[in-house]
């Protein structure tokens, strides 16, 4: 079976116009994203993540190189049928309601009739926008709600691949956690999820594999475990040690030739702390 997304020597230059020259956004990008994988495109702002995604979607034409989606040339109808896309900072037609938005995107995918209506209702309840919330205009939505509505829109045609551009940017911790949960859920349903992020710590717990981009070029690629595991070091977390035992442990380590790089009480991540302290019903 062909890869979900495959690119070879993908390159994109933007002409600035009025003779101001060109900007190289992506250069020599080779990717192979397997089906069912959760894949992260990481890198700082301006590293070429969005440009790469847009080329895969067919919104931008590559200057050179080739991109394929499930074996189809990127940008063709066949390729686009495989992808659901949630753009960065959901820009949706604000005059629509959540329900109308998902229905509109369904129609653009060629769906219609009862099948579409059923699908829309199902998706809205999946992203918890069923009932009254779905009938409100999008301009009254919070950012998290917009993200969820957009996600429902991206999923309406039941695509093989779901692409999310900066899905957690600007979303509060609870919303961000929610999106990560959704990504996991999608993976369980066998979808390929490709997302981009510049908030590196947020992708740690969901991505199977990542590529790190810098100035349009690939810096690193691999499984997160492989990339992040510091195989030369060892870490132990324990509970119930007294002051005396700690000193004893330190001495034992030094005695056995280890260089102690750090010790002390671990700190919880602020996000986890925040979520742990929310009232029960708001955590999910």
């Amino acid at each position, binding site marked *: 079976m062909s890869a979900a997304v495959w690119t070879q020597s993908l390159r994109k230059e933007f002409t600035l116009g009025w003779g101001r020259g060109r900007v190289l956004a992506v250069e020599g990008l080779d990717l192979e994203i397997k089906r069912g994988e959760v894949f992260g495109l990481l890198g700082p702002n301006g590293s070429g993540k969005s440009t790469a995604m847009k080329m895969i979607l067919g919104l931008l034409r590559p200057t050179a190189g080739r991109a394929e989606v499930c074996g189809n040339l990127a940008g063709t109808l066949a390729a686009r049928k495989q992808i659901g896309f949630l753009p960065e900072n959901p820009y949706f037609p604000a005059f*629509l309601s959540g329900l109308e938005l998902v229905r509109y995107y369904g129609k653009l995918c060629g769906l219609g009739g009862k099948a579409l209506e059923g699908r829309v209702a199902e998706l809205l309840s999946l992203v918890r926008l069923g009932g009254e919330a779905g009938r409100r205009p999008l301009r009254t939505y919070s950012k998290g709600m917009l993200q969820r509505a957009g996600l429902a829109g991206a999923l309406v045609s039941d695509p093989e691949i779901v692409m999310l551009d900066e899905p957690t940017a600007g979303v509060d911790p609870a919303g961000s956690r929610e999106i990560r949960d959704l990504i996991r859920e999608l993976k369980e349903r066998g979808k390929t999820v490709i997302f981009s992020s510049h908030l590196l710590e947020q992708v740690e717990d969901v991505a199977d594999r990542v590529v790190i981009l810098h100035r349009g070029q690939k810096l690193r690629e691999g499984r997160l475990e492989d990339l992040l595991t510091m195989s030369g070091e060892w870490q132990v977390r324990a509970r119930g040690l007294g002051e005396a035992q700690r000193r004893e442990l330190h001495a034992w380590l030094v005695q056995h030739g280890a260089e102690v790089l750090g010790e002390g009480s671990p700190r919880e991540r602020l996000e986890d702390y925040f979520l742990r302290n929310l009232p029960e019903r708001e955590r999910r």
Partner: protein
Amino acid sequence: MRESWRRIRAVAENTFLEAVRQKVFAVLLVFALVLLGGANYFAEFSFQEQFKFLKDLGYATISLTGLLVGLLGAAQLIPAEIERRTILTALCRPLRRWEFVVGKYLGLVALLAVMLAIMGAVFWAVLRWKEAQLIGLEGGEAGVVQAIQAESRDPRLWQAFALMGAKLFVVCGLAVFFSTLATSTTFVVAMTLLVYLIGHLQSVAREQWLESGEKAAWFIQLFLAAVALLVPDFNLYSLIDEIVAGNVVPWRATLEVLAYSVAYVAVLLAAAACLFEERDL
């Protein structure tokens, strides 16, 4: 084919819905309706003159409103969608770009058609109101009543209406064409308005170009040729003025202008689709 039409319709419906939910179009419509009602104001002239004033004012109101709707609508079209980036969420779907362009155009035209229909109905009512008023004033003599009704129930008014609609649809076509080139709404509105104005001069430029021969300087020739070749001849639609002036305009001439409009829109949309196909978003 069928799926394609379904997608075009979805884009058109969405464009229409967007416009309808914007207050500006409702305000424009109300403004136009008030003007149309107020057009019945001049009473100190002969009834022929009163009808001419009423008709001129009616047509001017309707076409001005139509022009504004076309221009504002065009601004809402592609550049605004690019600015707000809503276009990304649409064009990443299995939707061909030409389908998007055609859908946008049809949505705008549907909006215009609905507004024209409403204004046309009100205009018709105002004419009948004037008729009743004048018959009451001038007395019920058969000849006079007949002459008044010949003005108020002139079937040629619908001929003028069709021409006006066609002209506005060409303006919308221009707007869509420019919106596939442009990055800003201002550019689209300015260019469309410019071509609209120059279009009324096209026939003069064309005749000057074809008749001037070697006499004029080359850059003047070039300018005249550019206007003649690239700009629609909006003077062809001045048949509307003929009709309002009470002159007979053959249907054949009207239908030919309508055919010209359809052809023009088709070319504009095809060119717009070509330009849009390769555009980076």
